[in-house]
């Protein structure tokens, strides 16, 4: 059986813009990935817990309501608290250029803004998933 890349597509906080998240989810599915979509209005700890239970390779956060600088670092902290240090963390949506360095410093691998090319997102994800140890 082929090893599928598993992606958790997450929407944090009160942000109700889910079009981008759905576009991304579909693009991943069409690229052969398995996408776990948890729906809107998630707390960071719930997303972190879902990432653990689903043993995903990628956590993909879509943020359009401006709370990225608080919620995304909180999510990353929640993941670390659970000992998760081997997932690829991606962010996208409406995130001003000047906020990107801070997110990268927290451990986000890359930020994809509006108009991002889906093929490029897929290619980047494929190239950067970390193959997990533990044997």
């Amino acid at each position, binding site marked *: 059986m082929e090893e599928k890349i598993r992606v958790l597509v997450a929407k944090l906080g009160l942000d109700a813009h889910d079009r981008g998240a759905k576009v991304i989810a579909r693009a991943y599915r069409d690229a052969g990935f398995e996408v776990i979509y948890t729906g809107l209005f998630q707390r960071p700890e719930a997303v972190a817990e*879902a990432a653990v*239970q689903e043993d995903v390779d990628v956590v993909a956060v879509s943020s359009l309501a401006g709370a990225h600088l608080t919620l995304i670092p909180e999510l990353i902290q929640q993941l670390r608290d659970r000992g998760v240090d081997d997932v690829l963390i991606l962010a996208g949506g409406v995130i001003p250029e000047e906020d990107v360095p801070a997110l990268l410093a927290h451990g986000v691998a890359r930020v994809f803004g509006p108009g991002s090319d889906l093929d490029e997102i897929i290619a980047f994800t494929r190239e950067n998933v970390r193959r997990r140890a533990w044997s």
Partner: protein
Amino acid sequence: MELIDRFRAGDRRALARAITWVENGRPEAAELLKALYPLGGKAHVIGVTGPPGAGKSTLVDRMALGLRQRGQRVAIVAVDPSSPFSGGAILGDRIRMQRSLSDPGIYMRSLSSRGHVGGISQATGDVVAVLDAFGFDTVLVETVGAGQSEVEIVGLAHTIVVVAVPGLGDDIQAIKAGILEIGDIFAVNKADREGAERTVAEIEMMLDLGHMGEPGLNRWPAEGPLPGGPAGYQGLERLDPTGHHKDVDELPPGVTAPARPGGGAGAGGEGPGGAPTAPQGPGGRHGSVAPGGISWRPPVVKTVAKDGQGVEQLLDRCLEHLQFLRESGRWEARQREDAQARVQDLVARLVARRVLDRAAAAGDLPRLTEAVARREVDPYTAAEAILRRHFAEPPGRPEEPIS
């Protein structure tokens, strides 16, 4: 293996990773399953199936919470279909399980069917085995939205809840042949909608027809689950004739034994109460039962998963069904059937892999498949040739059974 140690210590990340390995058929997975096997065999596996959108996830969410309140540790497995084009999948069942998923005593895993068409994925059985070994009391398995043929859950679950919805009279007809036959319990969900009573009545009627003259015949294959579905049913004469009563201690925590023979169990719920049905002699409401035998007549429960109505009754019926399995001897019979099916299945798979690997390495597989594609050779002849050449029996074939 570090993973196994962490798994045994109750580490949820280790559990999650173990499931990934099993799902991907990693070489380490076989080692893992071997090591975990002695720990399993305890969990009550409840399958939840029904048409797409019937409310399976919402109901499973409620059931998980209810079981938690009864002191159980609960795991949920939900299977969604994979895309036939890309092999990818969007697994969305978590969206409807928000209530239970904030409970740290519940573990939930989404699976893609990965091209498999029976309503679950090929690895679902092994995934459930891993969860069983981890120590969950109940594993709830939500199938892909099912119709007539997605009935493989039969080989996996001890208790099958078929979820139907009102207002789909034709739909009931459509599922009659397939999933209606496999239900141990029926949940008419969305009972807040018009037509729920009618749907209950329709299912009751079909159950009555199905039961006429065949009391207690449920869904248990006589000789172990064969590929392609149940080959027959286990008749009453195979049941424990004493119908003896197990200790209440053996029931899951928080559950009391329902009133037993003579009393008719669990009459307090929706519909005509859950079985086990006590022997009633000829002419009983749902047919009769052989003297001394007990039978299971699938109860029909109305639920509104959205707000939780009827879920307690549904859980009562599930636990009564478990009790019925134990008391009737079917639980044990089932362990043997499962063991047989698993071993047969694994032998078939191991042999196939070994033969195909050898044939591929020798170049025979590509050569012959090419010839078959060009219609120079027929596939039967090709398969026989491969077996003749690559399925050499090892020397010293045991005359004695392997102990």
